[in-house]
């Protein structure tokens, strides 16, 4: 039975009372003015020392007794089918214990990109495994390839896929297969929409348009994909670098998979980054488990950096054509969008979210997926958003300039988010929006400002349980089997339990990343913290209740009047009874209290379902060398109630850093001749380093959204959405010429300057035309 409670929701000076229905055993969300000891206080990660001193054991670091090494042989060809694989020579080499071939394990004889898995070897040493790989003789049927969207879209381009697969397919609105009649209905509907929106745009006061492109960005986590697998009495134990421990297990135990373990434990105590690429066990996970089975000893199969760059995922690229009609009053009337992107050898998943965030009027949007012979894309930190925001925010500045409205005022005019309305002004103030700078290429070194917004949906949901255990001698532990991919989940889960039990951080042990513990979610959609912490708090609340009942029973007190605060038993409204937490625990008859609670149902009422967020960038551009230096990024962020400002701030910093890196440096470079990736390393795949990092000014808003008993929302993805867009707008502001392509390299800056200066000599430049 749900129960009704009164809560306050809102933020800053905007609060209102609200009645919400919550699950009957749930606990009331923390309220403004509640006396809290840990929640809302910056608390260092409990594993910070272990991580920075190198004592934290990642999957890569595991070395169970008898462990040997696995390695994967990859196709060097842009597009091929595997005709035959001869392993005779390889298996006779010293140290070789097991060899598997991809066609046999994966029922797949195609090798559709350079880097596709062909075979795997386990041997006593890494060098022996590598020598064996090189002794495997593979006969390929080499086919022509396309490795760029441009090439794959050309008339008469080589076919990337197999069978009837065409290179280009509409992915949104999705073309339904095998549903007779519906596709032509869809085509008609799209044609009507195109005409209608076209008219809306044409009838607007001003029309702006542009074609924008973004690059392929690999996830490039420091810890590569893979696992260390050990079979013990028929049970598979897998130390996996995973952002979905339970999803990983499901794939290895499923009746339809290649491994079909009867019993399996995934251990991911520490994970060196995932960014969306580690939801699946992947081919490397299957091969690791099967090599260990065949070899009869534990196998370490973690990808090398090249394998990681080639095969372990990336953010799809995009080509986005946008046309927007705007009236003089600043209201956007309509927008036409066509986009293309490559997810690798498939067609789905490469969409760009360029129609979110603002009200952009009537929308006519069609997206196409383009097959290329390249490593497959995966969800990448806010899938579709940074690339979409880049195009959209350039358009917003272009439109604002065209109608002569301040760029922030124009955004406000087309934005209804209650939190973001406040965040604009904070960002303006912190970046000094109205300062005077040498803009528009007015000097060799010029500067500019740019602003952009983000949006996310991350209040979390079901799919998690937490176990809280209080022992007779006063030890407290909380367990949930989900992983912490660097977000601080381990720390915040402990904080929530310590807060509920009136304890200090060091009195609560946390155990995570172990599928023998209660179910936890995948770390996706920025939902981990919003899913796990309400379960942890609820379990702690009920464990406390049980303890208070024991105390009340022994002391003849009324349990409903008791609470735990400051490591002592309190009488509500009166203060401490003088009984310590430890002496309360000592009153137990049993060895421990154990409470397992599932994540309570979400509150459907509340303040805001979404995170907002605004970022502003201040950049300096050297017109002599084309170098862009991001001086400062102001990141105003919100994520419901901020449980730990320190780890929240780190999330935002991480997003900004990866966003600047996307804006200026990172890109996959493909050789179109042989179809191979040329920068499958950290030398030529350039990522932001310490000297390239801007000053990052994080402002966090604390929002009581009433959505759960912890009211927290995730913050992994939102902070990367706006960064590249804001940086690009700032560069355009500094140079006086629009930047249409990411990353903004010195080459592109110098080329844009050359075109700008050439255009100055031709005064009759057509309005809106791309420079």
């Amino acid at each position: 039975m749900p129960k009704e409670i009164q809560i306050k929701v809102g933020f800053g000076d905007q609060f209102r009372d609200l009645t919400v229905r919550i699950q009957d055993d749930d606990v009331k969300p923390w309220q403004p003015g509640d006396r809290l000891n840990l929640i809302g206080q910056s608390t260092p990660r409990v594993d910070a020392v272990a991580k920075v001193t190198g004592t934290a054991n990642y999957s890569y670091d595991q070395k169970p007794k008898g462990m040997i090494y696995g390695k994967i042989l990859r196709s060097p060809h842009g597009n091929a089918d595997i005709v035959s694989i001869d392993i005779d020579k390889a298996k006779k080499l010293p140290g070789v214990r097991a060899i598997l071939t991809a066609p046999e394990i994966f029922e797949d004889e195609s090798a559709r990109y350079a880097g596709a898995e062909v075979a795997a070897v386990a041997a006593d040493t890494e060098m022996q495994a590598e020598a064996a790989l090189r002794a495997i003789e593979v006969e390929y049927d080499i086919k022509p390839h396309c490795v760029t969207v441009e090439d794959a879209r050309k008339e008469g381009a080589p076919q990337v896929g197999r069978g009837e697969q065409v290179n280009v397919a509409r992915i949104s609105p999705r073309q339904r297969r095998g549903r007779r009649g519906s596709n032509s209905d869809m085509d008609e509907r799209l044609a009507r929409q195109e005409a209608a929106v076209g008219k809306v745009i044409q009838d607007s006061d001003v029309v702006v348009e542009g074609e924008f492109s973004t690059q392929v960005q690999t996830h490039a986590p420091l810890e590569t994909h893979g696992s260390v697998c050990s079979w013990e009495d028929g049970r598979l134990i897998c130390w996996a670098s995973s952002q979905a421990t339970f999803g990983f297990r499901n794939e290895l135990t499923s009746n339809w998979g290649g491994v079909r373990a009867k019993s399996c434990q995934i251990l991911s105590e520490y994970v060196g980054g995932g960014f969306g690429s580690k939801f699946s066990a992947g081919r490397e996970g299957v091969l690791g488990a099967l090599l260990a089975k065949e070899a009869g000893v534990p196998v370490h199969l973690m990808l090398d950096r090249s394998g990681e760059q080639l095969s372990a995922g990336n953010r799809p690229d995009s080509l986005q054509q946008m046309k927007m009609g705007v009236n003089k009053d600043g209201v956007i009337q309509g927008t036409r969008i066509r986009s293309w992107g490559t997810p690798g050898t498939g067609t789905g998943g490469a969409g760009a979210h360029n129609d979110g965030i603002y009200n952009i009027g009537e929308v006519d949007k069609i997206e196409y997926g383009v097959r290329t012979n390249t490593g497959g894309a995966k969800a990448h930190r806010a899938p579709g958003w940074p690339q979409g925001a880049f195009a959209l925010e350039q358009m917003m500045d272009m439109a604002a300039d065209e109608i002569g409205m301040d760029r922030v005022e124009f955004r406000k005019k087309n934005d209804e988010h209650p939190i973001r309305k406040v965040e604009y002004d904070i960002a303006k103030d912190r970046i000094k929006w109205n300062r005077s700078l040498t803009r528009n290429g007015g000097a060799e070194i010029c500067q500019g400002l740019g602003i952009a917004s983000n949006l996310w949906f991350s209040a979390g949901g079901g799919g998690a349980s937490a176990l809280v255990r209080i022992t007779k001698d006063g030890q407290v532990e909380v367990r949930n089997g989900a992983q912490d991919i660097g977000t601080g989940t381990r720390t915040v889960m402990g904080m929530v339990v310590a807060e509920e039990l009136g304890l200090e951080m060091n009195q609560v042990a946390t155990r995570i990343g172990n599928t023998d513990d209660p179910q936890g979610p995948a770390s996706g959609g920025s939902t981990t913290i919003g899913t796990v912490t309400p379960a942890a708090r609820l379990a702690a609340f009920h464990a406390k209740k049980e303890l208070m009942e024991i105390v009340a029973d022994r002391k003849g007190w009324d349990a409903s009047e008791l609470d735990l605060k400051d490591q002592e038993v309190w009488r509500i409204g009166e203060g401490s009874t003088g009984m310590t937490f430890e002496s309360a625990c000592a009153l137990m008859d049993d060895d421990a209290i154990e409470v397992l609670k599932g994540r309570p149902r979400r509150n459907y009422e509340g303040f805001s379902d979404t995170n907002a967020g605004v970022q502003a960038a201040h950049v300096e551009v050297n017109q002599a060398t084309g170098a862009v230096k991001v001086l400062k990024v102001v990141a105003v962020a919100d994520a419901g109630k901020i449980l730990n400002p320190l780890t929240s701030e780190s999330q935002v910093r991480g997003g900004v850093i990866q966003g600047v890196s996307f804006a200026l440096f990172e890109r996959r470079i493909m050789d179109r001749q042989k179809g191979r990736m040329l920068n499958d390393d950290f030398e030529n795949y350039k990522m932001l380093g310490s000297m390239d990092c801007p000053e990052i000014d994080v402002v966090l808003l604390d929002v009581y959204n009433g959505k759960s008993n912890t009211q927290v929302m995730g913050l992994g993805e939102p902070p990367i959405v706006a960064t590249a867009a804001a940086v690009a707008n700032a560069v355009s502001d500094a140079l006086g010429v629009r930047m249409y392509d990411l990353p903004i390299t010195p080459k592109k800056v110098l080329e844009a300057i050359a075109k700008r200066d050439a255009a100055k000599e031709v005064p009759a430049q057509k309005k809106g035309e791309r420079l």
Partner: protein
Amino acid sequence: MAMQKPELLPEDVCPCLRTKTMLLNTEYRRSAFEDAFTADTAFFHCLKTMAYHGPDGDDVCPDGCRPGRACYPQPDEVT
């Protein structure tokens, strides 16, 4: 522990189909999964190939991974 067909997969979709959304927000995952059918940023992979194409070489997708496809598991594969 061996898994039967994941409960949120619609009856007539191949049990080998996997996507990230299946691992999230299970409270309303059925609707979330339905959303993923039309999402422009969802990736689907096959448990057999661990790739974006099935054993028959064609795409893995909610519309395509249906009974009648050559690689759709036969009833006796379901143990």
